[in-house]
């Protein structure tokens, strides 16, 4: 029972969600008594050395194909061929847009079952079972596969990347004849960075401000802390409504939904309308002077205290720590 993963690369480095998939694939393959391989697709920058580094994450083989980068359909062609030629039983993808597209394309090509937004995978009776949270994470379904191959698409950051190991993977070139339709989308420009303002949906760290900041100027404290942490500033509906902060930064039922690594809520009570927009954040820290604020019920670290005292000192301490 071997597992095939896809490793996305850009400017000479592999994507961290892809490395998560490779590591997870290797771990699961071991449990199933098989091995994990990775597919890489691109141009000359996919050197032997670079490809072999996937061995450090547990891949035994790396299938390398020359084809356009950053688009899904050429990868579907390559992976379908590798699976068919070598009998891989599962295809595993880390979170991210391409993983969804490639996984979906393979589903159609191979008539295979697919599970997406997967947060964990387990080996059970010699087969893989994917865990997928549903209904705003209020339940988790265990999904099994009727037949092989099975396709598993992870949620962003679902899979851990253990410290890199020693091994080098064997690099195998795949000669691929792309399907006609796979050549009809052409990348014109890739990875364009737009504007200086951070998109709060993408930020790893968010400092969110609510009415507890007291006045519009209170956001200066939040902005300073966000800058020190290397994150962006978000806001609740109440303060957006009151005109303290722009709508683009609003989190919640009628604003944006975010799931950063750190969500630091400053002066936010934690009404359900806000909670639904941020409850999937990895770490939630709340600072509020009201010890009864609902936000403390779903925060990982709660501080009952005065923002005006805590935020400036915290900003300084974070700066000092980061050097």
């Amino acid at each position: 029972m071997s597992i095939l993963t896809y490793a996305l690369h850009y400017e000479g480095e592999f994507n961290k969600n892809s490395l998560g998939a490779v590591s997870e694939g290797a771990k699961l393959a071991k449990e199933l008594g098989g091995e994990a391989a990775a597919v890489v697709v691109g141009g000359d920058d996919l050197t032997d050395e670079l490809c072999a580094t996937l061995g450090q994450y547990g891949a035994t083989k790396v299938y390398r194909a020359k084809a356009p980068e950053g688009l899904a359909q050429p990868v579907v062609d390559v992976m379908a061929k590798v699976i068919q030629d070598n009998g891989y039983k599962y295809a595993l993808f880390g979170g991210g847009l391409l993983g969804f597209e490639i996984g979906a394309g393979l589903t159609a090509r191979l008539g295979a079952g697919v599970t997406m937004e997967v947060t964990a995978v387990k080996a059970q009776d010699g087969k893989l079972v994917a865990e997928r949270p549903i209904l705003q994470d209020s339940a988790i379904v265990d999904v099994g596969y009727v037949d092989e191959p099975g396709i598993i698409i992870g949620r962003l950051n679902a899979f851990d990347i253990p410290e890199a190991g020693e091994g080098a993977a064997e690099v195998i070139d795949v000669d691929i004849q792309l399907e006609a339709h796979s050549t009809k989308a052409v990348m014109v420009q890739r990875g364009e960075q737009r504007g200086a303002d951070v998109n709060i949906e993408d930020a790893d760290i968010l400092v969110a401000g609510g009415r507890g900041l007291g006045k519009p100027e209170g956001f200066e404290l939040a902005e300073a802390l966000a800058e020190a942490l290397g994150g962006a500033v978000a806001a609740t509906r109440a303060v957006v409504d009151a005109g303290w902060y722009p709508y683009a930064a609003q989190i919640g039922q009628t604003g944006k939904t975010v799931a950063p690594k750190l969500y630091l809520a400053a002066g936010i009570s934690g009404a359900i309308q806000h909670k639904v927009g941020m409850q999937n954040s990895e770490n939630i820290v709340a600072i509020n002077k009201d010890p009864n604020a609902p936000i403390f019920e779903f925060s990982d670290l709660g501080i009952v205290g005065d923002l005006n005292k805590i935020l400036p000192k915290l900003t300084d301490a974070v700066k000092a720590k980061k050097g």
Partner: protein
Amino acid sequence: MSTAPIEYPPPVDSATEFVGPPTDPADERIEVGVAIVGGGPAGLACAIRLTQLLAEEETLLESLGEVPIALVEKGKGPGSHLLSGAMMKPSAMQKLFPDLPEEDWPTYGPVEKDTLYLLPNGKRAIPLKPTPPPFRNHGNHVTSVAQLGRWLAQQAEDAGVYILGETAGAKLLVADGRVVGVRSGDKGRGRDGQPLSNFEPGSDLIAQATVLCEGTQGHLTGAAIRHFEIGSEDPQQWELGVKEVWEVEKPLDRVIHTMGWPLHFAAKYREFGGSFIYPMGEDKISLGLVVGLDYRDARFSVHDALQELKGHPLVADLLEGGKRVAWGAKTLPSGGYWARPRQLWAPGMILCGDGAGMLNVPTLKGVHYAMHSGMFAAEAIFERLKAGRMCDDLSNYTAKVESSEIEEDTYRSRNMRQPFAKGFLVGGAIANMMEISGGRFPGGRWATHDDATVDVFIGKERDYPKPDGKKTFDKLSSVFASGNATRDDAPNHIRIQEKVPLEVALMWQNMCPAQVYEVPDEELEAASANGNGKLDGKHEVKLQITPSNCVQCGAITAKGGRLTPPEGGDGPNYQAT
């Protein structure tokens, strides 16, 4: 120290602003036969009854054009904005669906047992036996009007009615002294009313007859009553009900009403009202608290009083192990017989249901009146059309209402609500005499009063329970439970003066079950800066208003503001209320 909210009237003149001639070019107007505004029990019963009457009249039906009957509903669809107890007398359903067995009705079946309790305090409950007649419900059906509305809408649609959800009736179209239709609300305006990129203006809907079935605090109904000067000399009054639906572990085997605690019924507070607890099948119960809006203490909050009520052992026991699945709020007209509009029609237009004040206050019942009046409207219009006449004189509608149970019941209880302005005990005694005397005593005409004319004062801080998110809930999470997901930049549909004395501002803040009005902390501080640590009720404060929270209960219109319809589709999306 006290102020009457009426001293701060809303900046609006409904008779001119919401009434006017059609404005779309003649060839762009949408022509329908009969236009119905409001997809509640009244409007839907009207629509269905019309289809029944027209079923045998092919030529007449054809003469009404491509769209013989159109119904506009401001919520997402019929039912979205509907909320009631709801205990329904079966007479209207029997008339509208004579061949449908009662067990196939969209209800939780008829009531078999009921008990009225007096709650002297937060611990004890004294059953009043025998149950006084207004609280006897044998044979009545418990239902959810949100579900009843959806069911009726399905019947109407199957019969060929055009149901236009997400469409507010914004303006009553009047030309040459007769109602010629209704204009739908604009969509895609910003917070300050400015057209956004996807702005879509409303349309003129031209009809031979227009039936206003808008329910409590009807937007066009209010404007029409002013425009045609058909109101009663006695002002309408309202009560505000907040209710929750709970999934419970053990079935409730009877209908419960309570009076007394946690309301302060002394004349100083005048909190007239009570609670209802109805079984909804085996696994759900409907629980609500209804209080007259002529109460006086700005600290009082119906929503929070309902949360408090759930702590009473009588109620707590019923909810044990349960889970709240729905929440909502609505006003109901309680002016009764005397406050009903003097004339129930104008040329080309008919008023029905709650909008026309058709509600029996002592028994808390209006769903069947709404349906009956809707059917009468259908019959009255049909008679005129069938005779080949214009719908200018619709006095035949009044005649039908006046010879019906609506008239009989409400006349009988005509003076029952008013005495409660004297406090609960005196009022209760007089109302009881009225019941015992079969409506003969007290005689005469007891005046109603406008809720907004009642002085409000800032009482002692209330000790409402702290919401725990399990048994007791804050207002915002309740708004969430109502299904309200109104976009934040929707235009403000609430007309009030934003700078008012603190006692009025606090009253609005606490009254509103949906946290639309808030007195900002700094304003509160400024109002208590007089040195003695007490709040200065006369100090004028500026309110912060969040109209997107609004669940369209209508309380603000009773208490000194004016609610207008939101953008079509906004507001709550009630499923089980």
